[in-house]
């Protein structure tokens, strides 16, 4: 509390509580904590349903349609089933690590949502280093995944966990670099200010940045086409092979909660967050999150999986140079033509993105071939 008093008394830019909030600091914290938990859990249920239905429809089959009207209660049924299952721990497993892994994997996702604005000023903590916070916290999930893989004392799990760590570490860099382009345009690291600065959504001004962030984000959260961490057809279930019961439910939750969190970040950074006409802002926010998630499901259904060395090659040889080039181009644009009409910038950026992606992929060789044994 001393830190808070110090900040308030010295008028630091940190706004602990927005000025129009009725009530004290702790009431604000409690309200938003509850909102966040409810939001994440409800959205997970909804998102699981959307994914399974969409997956089914895109695969020319129906998807769940029996549990509840239109199969809406499928996720609830799954949750109940999983909770009733026996909690098995392998005898050779490291018990503490095995038990802690789901917690370590899930907590950062909730913590991440603390800086995402639902409405103008409506977020748990309007940190003025919001972007840095997002980047830092989102890596902690990997520690949980690796704990799961190692603590299961199972070769499959370990293989899956190693792959995850390698992939996440590689994809952090294009992720961060593409965010910096947005930060340059908005002039602030605070997520609320970034949303406020988006008179035209940054997806138009930073198309290459959006593409890079989306790809790197999908790789971070282990979604197809980068889901070899839990590749069903190769490693049975990767790092969560040995989990059952509530702990498995947590990992399942983590997968979708991360997807929602990533979709929320994408919405905030690129799609204009809660901005939009007519509807209430929080509804716009949820709508945009669902749309981004829809695109994620779409890529999942359509594309086959890449191999691990192809994954690494994609990160280091394709996304990373493009991210650097994106950063330079954005920096030059912000410095040299700060007053240029935004629409010229849009056209130029789309042209640059088209040229870069097409030209680079022509010269890009995916992965090694056969190794001499």
């Amino acid at each position, binding site marked *: 509390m001393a830190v808070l008093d110090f900040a308030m008394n010295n008028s630091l830019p940190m706004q602990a509580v927005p000025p129009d909030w009725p009530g004290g600091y702790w009431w604000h914290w409690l309200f938003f904590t509850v909102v966040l938990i409810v939001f994440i859990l409800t959205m997970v249920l909804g998102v699981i349903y959307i994914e399974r239905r969409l*997956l089914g429809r*895109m*695969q*020319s*089959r129906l998807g769940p349609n029996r549990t509840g009207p239109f199969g809406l209660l499928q996720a609830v049924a799954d949750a109940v089933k999983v909770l009733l299952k026996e909690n098995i721990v392998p005898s050779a497993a490291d018990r503490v690590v095995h038990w802690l892994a789901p917690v370590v994997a899930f907590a950062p996702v909730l913590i991440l949502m603390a800086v995402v604005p639902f409405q103008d000023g409506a977020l748990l903590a309007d940190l003025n280093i919001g972007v840095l916070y997002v980047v830092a916290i989102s890596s902690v999930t990997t520690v949980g995944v690796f704990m799961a893989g190692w603590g299961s004392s199972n*070769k*499959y799990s370990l*293989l899956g966990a190693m792959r995850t760590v390698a992939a996440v570490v590689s994809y952090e860099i294009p992720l961060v670099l593409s965010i910096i382009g947005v930060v340059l345009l908005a002039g602030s690291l605070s997520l609320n200010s970034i949303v406020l600065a988006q008179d035209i959504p940054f997806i138009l001004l930073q198309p290459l940045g959006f593409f890079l962030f989306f790809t790197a984000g999908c790789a971070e959260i282990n979604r*197809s*086409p980068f*889901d*070899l961490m839990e*590749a*069903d*057809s*190769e*490693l*049975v279930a990767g790092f969560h092979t040995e989990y059952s019961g509530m702990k498995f439910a947590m990992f399942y939750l983590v997968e979708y909660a991360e997807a929602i969190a990533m979709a929320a970040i994408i919405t905030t950074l690129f799609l204009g967050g809660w901005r939009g006409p007519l509807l209430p802002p929080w509804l716009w926010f949820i709508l945009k999150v669902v749309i981004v998630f829809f695109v994620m499901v779409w890529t*999942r*259904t*359509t*594309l*086959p*999986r*890449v*191999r*691990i*060395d*192809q994954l690494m090659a994609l990160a280091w040889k394709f996304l990373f140079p493009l991210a650097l080039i994106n950063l330079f181009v954005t920096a030059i644009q912000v410095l040299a033509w700060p007053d240029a009409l935004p629409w010229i910038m849009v056209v130029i950026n789309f042209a640059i993105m088209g040229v870069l992606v097409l030209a680079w*992929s022509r010269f890009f060789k*995916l*992965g090694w*071939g*056969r*190794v*001499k*044994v």
Partner: protein
Amino acid sequence: MTFSTEPFVLNFGPLHPSTHGVFRIKATLDGEVVLDIEPVFGYLHRGIEKLMEERTYTGGIPLTDRLDYVNSMTNNFAYCLAVEKLGGIKVPERAEYIRVIIAELQRIGNHCLAVGAMLNDAGALGTPFFYLWRQREKIYDLLEMLCGQRLMNNYVRIGGVSQDIPAEFLPAVMKFVPQLRSFLDEYDFFLMQNEILLARAKGVGILPPEVAINCGISGPVARASGIKRDLRRDDPYSIYQRFEFEIPTCEEGDCYARYRVRIAEMLQSLHIIVQAAQSMPPGATKADVPHLIRPPAGEAYGHIEGPKGELGFYVVSDNSIAPYRCHVRATSFINLSALRQMVRGWKVADLIIIFGSIDITMGEVDR
């Protein structure tokens, strides 16, 4: 500072989401690279060859259904061919045409499953698999119209087929053919240039033609390596000499080549079906052979170009109602012998896709 590593053995156990049946691979891995594999199978061994010695010749036909259960009637066909060679039995014309149509329908159905399963192993989460499975369901409908069973059809008999085709069968087949053709064009268009599929399958798991010949590989796997050998052309059985069709081959011998050969073969099968349906004569559908047939003593080897390759039956008779010895020259069993060489040096993910591209059915491997 040298970095010392040691290889470890990972067991892709008999129960595994993508081993196409109960098949166990003991893979020695160095990190992700496969150094060596040892295939272990026999989990589905039912002793079919011994059981055939205790059934009559006709009573053994349902046993052959269960060999390559993905396309049952090709097994029936090969077995009946062998016994007809033994007994010198001539099959009536109409039955031959029906058998050809069925064999080609089974070929299409098998390739639907093979391509879908290979793409499923590549990680495409089932989307191409479900699309192809829908076509296979349409073939099931046709087969149900024909003999009442979708799988394990047991329709082909020694000397012909068990009953005549219903009146609505040929029109249904002719309706199915153009629909499948346009579906395959669209499907191939989606997948042919898919970057990720190309990266996963092109150049992966190359089978050199000398190795293929030495191991006795047959079928689409051999044709994808450049070996232009197809029993319908090189050793024609039934009435295949009357039909015009091409034998698609590729030169590279990688997984992508096997995929392309299978898609091309499906289109050629459609061509054969149309020709057969248009020129089917009326007449008897089964030669007049007794149910408890006693072929004269001797031996015969009857083989066909099944969807997976050369499927042969070596039947020895001692003039009794049951075969003295019946051996199955099982395609998948023999195609499996090249797996070890194809896989060494590739990664775990490639092991799965290479195994999927050979198209193995454990029923045939284990018998």
